[in-house]
């Protein structure tokens, strides 16, 4: 065997003329200890870092159960104007977990978009689709108006002015056995009122937006 050639190519430490090399040895004891020590350290660090990381980002992947909440009997609502109702989005944090929704009966004259068919009540979330401030329904103007940055929405919750990137979110509705209207999970809509799983404010759902702002992993279709 040509020693000159094998000096750098051979896998045996003896051929590579390492001091103290053994016959048939491919990794020196020193190299083995270095790699073993660093590997053991990496495993030890990963054994507490990975669970801690998972613990911190776990809520992203958690799906919350659907809540249905009664907001009053059917006679409260009419097809022509909105009635504000207080709903509890998160029961664990007291007042901060409550929000307002605007509810009216389905009106075939104005709810003409194909995606609206089938719901007997329309419930609009008061969370502005710009950055999440609470909008209010202004009866005289027949508009939802946001106090923070001037977002304006029409009767159906579609944007007519200001910075919002999509219409107001809605809630699923149903009527229970006591003839009370119940509000269920939130869903988002694009400018054609096509339904999407709930997205955060500021995330457009038209065109490329629906791909740039993906649905959250825990979201379930109703």
């Amino acid at each position: 065997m040509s020693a000159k050639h094998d000096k750098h190519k051979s896998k045996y430490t003896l051929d590579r003329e390492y001091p103290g090399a053994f016959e048939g040895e491919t990794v020196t004891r020193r190299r083995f200890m270095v790699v073993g020590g660093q590997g053991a350290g990496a495993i030890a660090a990963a054994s507490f870092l990975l669970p801690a990381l998972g613990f911190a980002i776990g809520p992203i992947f958690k799906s919350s159960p659907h809540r249905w909440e009664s907001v009053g009997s059917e006679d409260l609502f009419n097809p022509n104007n909105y009635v504000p109702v207080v709903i509890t989005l998160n029961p664990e944090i007291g007042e901060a977990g409550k929000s307002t929704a605007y509810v009216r009966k389905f009106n075939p004259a104005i709810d003409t978009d194909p995606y609206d068919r089938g719901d007997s009540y329309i419930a609009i979330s008061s969370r502005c689709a710009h950055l999440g401030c609470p909008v209010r329904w202004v009866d005289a103007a027949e508009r939802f108006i946001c106090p923070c940055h001037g977002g304006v929405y029409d009767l159906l919750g579609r944007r007519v002015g200001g910075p919002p990137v999509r219409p107001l979110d809605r809630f699923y509705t149903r009527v229970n056995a006591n003839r009370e209207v119940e509000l269920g999970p939130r869903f988002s809509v694009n400018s054609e009122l096509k339904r999407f799983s709930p997205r955060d404010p500021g995330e457009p759902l038209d065109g490329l937006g629906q791909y740039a702002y993906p649905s959250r992993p825990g979201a379930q279709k109703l």
Partner: protein
Amino acid sequence: MPKLPAPPIPSSLQAPPPRPGEGNGKATKPHEHAAEAGAAVVDWVDERTSLSGGARWLMFRKVPKGTNWFYTLGSATMFAFLSQAVTGVFLAMYYRPDPSGGAYESIRHVTNEVFLGQFVRGMHKWGSSVMVILVFLHMGRTFFFGAYKYPRELNWVIGVVLLILTMTMSFTGYLLPFDQRAYWATIVGVNINGTGPLLGPYLSDFLRGGPEFGATTLSRFYAIHMLLVPGLIAALIGAHLYLVAKLGTTAPPWLKAEQNPELREADA
């Protein structure tokens, strides 16, 4: 070493100078014993750590001509951070990150009832704005004096990370009083994070600890505000200072380098 003038104390009250042959350089008075004991403790530590060399390296550096008050903005920022750290530690002794009313109540208690509570909370609250302003002034000084150039680019990068971390502190601290302003500012701030494409929605869910503002959002912000980010800031300030000491202070841009007079002769 030049001697300071003696304080104007009547000679009858002054200690008489030692008589020739008395003491022989050894400590005889109590305060001399105390000074020697102090020096002995410092010597004991220094003999075992060699810290004094590092302290001398950090503190007694050559500084170029023309350094001026603008060069104190970095230290000012650091002292603003130290003030925030100290007042923050003591505020944490009273604060409760409880979203169902306890957080607001504990802040109200600190402000209205705790002795000096309003003052310490005020220092923390106004100090946060002071720190942000000082960070920007320090950044401006570095930029306009050209102090970010080779070999100090890495220190600029560390400084930018420190700026972002300071902003994170401002953002997470804003929620803690848990009043209407804090709540809605956080809703808006988290949603601004969410407008970043692809990763934005995940970032907002991480900040809130779920799809909606929930029970753990406040404790999450509190942990980020008082454990995660301050540790990072302290570590990066250490790195920042090390590089300042290692690379030295820049001269102001209007100062020309002084030529060696011998070389000047040679030029002529």
